[in-house]
């Protein structure tokens, strides 16, 4: 079959993938560089990976990022699922169009705007009833959950809209009631999109710099913020090593997600 593909198309495909992945591969290779310079190869070594484990600032930031990622992705997914159900299954409530525009606005809003408005909200809240006291992990988590929720809602809505509604009616006809019908029929069938939504929210949270820098406080820096500030002092192969690890973690997650979606679809 591939013999039918014109040469130009092949070339473009190779060029496209090359532009995407050659820099990443280069970065990964240089994470094993023995020397201190990022662009001069001085032999193979894993010393930068060992050094990572003794860098407390980085480890704290990684810890923060993971906690924020897991919790905000979970909150985003739950809220996104509720939004999706409301929009798809209860489609005729008043102000639906208005709400759906509002729910998707953060998708296109500049992150700086989201970050700033969140910061102003947190300050106003602290001034009026004392919570949250200062900025920290909790404020980043809330900001990320809000942001991720919109993405999660879009992902889950698509799947839910494509799901055959008569399946739910059949379950109801056979004596099923809510929430049982949801748990036994709807949820298992939209599960791939729920997993995808969680992974997406996690990834968005895990590599966000802009919003996090607005709403983070002392001691709550996330991994991307730390990397960002380190780069200002010059890039060291240590950064390459962290980045390589991040890519590994995220690719594993994406592959698990993709695998689950594929397996579900092949059952259909």
């Amino acid at each position, binding site marked *: 079959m591939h013999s039918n593909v014109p040469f130009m198309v092949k070339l473009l495909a190779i060029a496209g993938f090359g532009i995407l992945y050659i820099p990443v591969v280069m970065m990964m290779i240089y994470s094993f560089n023995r020397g201190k310079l990022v662009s001069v190869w001085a032999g193979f070594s894993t010393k930068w990976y060992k050094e990572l484990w003794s860098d407390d600032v980085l480890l704290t930031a990684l810890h923060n990022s993971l906690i924020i990622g897991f919790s905000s992705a979970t909150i985003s997914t739950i809220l996104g699922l509720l939004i999706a159900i409301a929009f798809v299954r209860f489609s005729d409530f008043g102000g639906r169009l208005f709400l759906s525009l509002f729910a998707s606005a953060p998708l296109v809003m500049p992150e700086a705007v989201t970050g700033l408005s969140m910061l102003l909200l947190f300050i106003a809240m602290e001034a009026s009833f004392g919570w949250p006291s200062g900025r920290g992990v909790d404020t980043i988590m809330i900001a990320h959950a809000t942001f991720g929720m919109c993405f999660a809602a879009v992902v889950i809505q698509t799947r839910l809209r494509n799901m*055959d509604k*008569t*399946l739910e*009616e*059949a*379950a*109801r*006809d*056979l*004596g*099923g*009631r809510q929430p*049982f019908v949801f748990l*036994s*029929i709807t949820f*298992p*069938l939209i599960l791939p999109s729920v997993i995808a939504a969680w992974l997406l929210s996690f990834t968005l949270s895990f590599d966000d710099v802009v919003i996090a820098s607005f709403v983070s406080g002392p001691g709550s820096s996330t991994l991307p913020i730390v990397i960002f500030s380190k780069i200002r002092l010059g890039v060291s192969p240590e950064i390459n090593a962290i980045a390589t690890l991040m890519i590994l973690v995220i690719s594993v997650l994406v592959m698990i997600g993709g695998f689950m979606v594929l397996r579900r679809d092949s*059952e*259909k």
Partner: protein
Amino acid sequence: MDPFIRIQNISKRFGKLSAVDNVSFNLERGELFSLLGPSGCGKTTLLRILAGFEKPTEGYIEIDGQDMANVDPADRPVNIMFQSYALFPHMSVSNNIAYGLKRASLPADEIKVRVEELQRLVHLTEMGERKPSTLSGGQRQRVALARALARRPKLLLLDEPLAALDKKLRSETQFELVNIQEKLGTTFIVVTHDQEEAMTLSTRIGVMDNGKLVQTAIPNEIYEQPVTRFVADFVGEISFLEATVKERIGKHWLMDAAAPIHAIGDKNLKSGMKVSLAIRPEKITLTPQSTGSLNEFPVDIEDLAFYGAGTQYKVIGPDGMKLKVYQSHNQPSQANSKKLEKGFVHFLPESIIILQG
């Protein structure tokens, strides 16, 4: 005695649109009733009202003496077999069938026995562990049937049960469906747009047009004595002739159409009334020569189609009057009809259906 199922003055309006318009009929226990009509005539909406998914705007439904007005679909003694079958794709065949039984909180071993019984009934004993996606269309249909029967409903609704099957499988399944229905004695309402299917399946047929139930009768009566032009046209082949009532001659009415036609009708006809005369193709006889019969006139043969057991002709009579004629090949020496270009048709006065309005 009260009827088993009573459907009284059911109407369903969506805004100004009347999807179901004042429909009433009763069913006896064990009937196989077909709701026949073209798509968009409201038959599926009526089915959904019976299942409880739609609330009727007006009307009353009673099943076995129980008013259904405020009964949730989950609690109705009614189950539905969807046109798409709506099998749960993530569950095995036996779990699909068991779904309704588990909701009825039966003990696990009884559920197992019932599921096996149902699988035997629809000949799917070996398929219990399979997922619906691995089954053929016919097998899926039978899983859907078994699942819908599992709770032993008093009324089973079937939405176009055979529409998704290919033609050969369809006739086999048709008989299977009737067998199962007779074996269990469950009351069935089948929704279909296929008049042949309705004819062969049902004990009675209700023909729907534009939200209204226009005629309810046994299949034979629907075919032989349609009450409106719509029913006559929708069920089987038929030709219409526009005519004016002229006068009463003995038992016959003399009609003024393109040719004078004698018809029998005990309706309250008056001379001068405009009527439609309808006649089935198989009630018309086509002959090469005139036989001197009543209701005979010369025709030109415009077109013919050979069906094996018979031939269908399109003929044009006096004044451009168009008729469909079906001649069965029941005689060994049929005239070689291909060469026939002109001929005579005649039919009995009692073969004519007089439709007013």
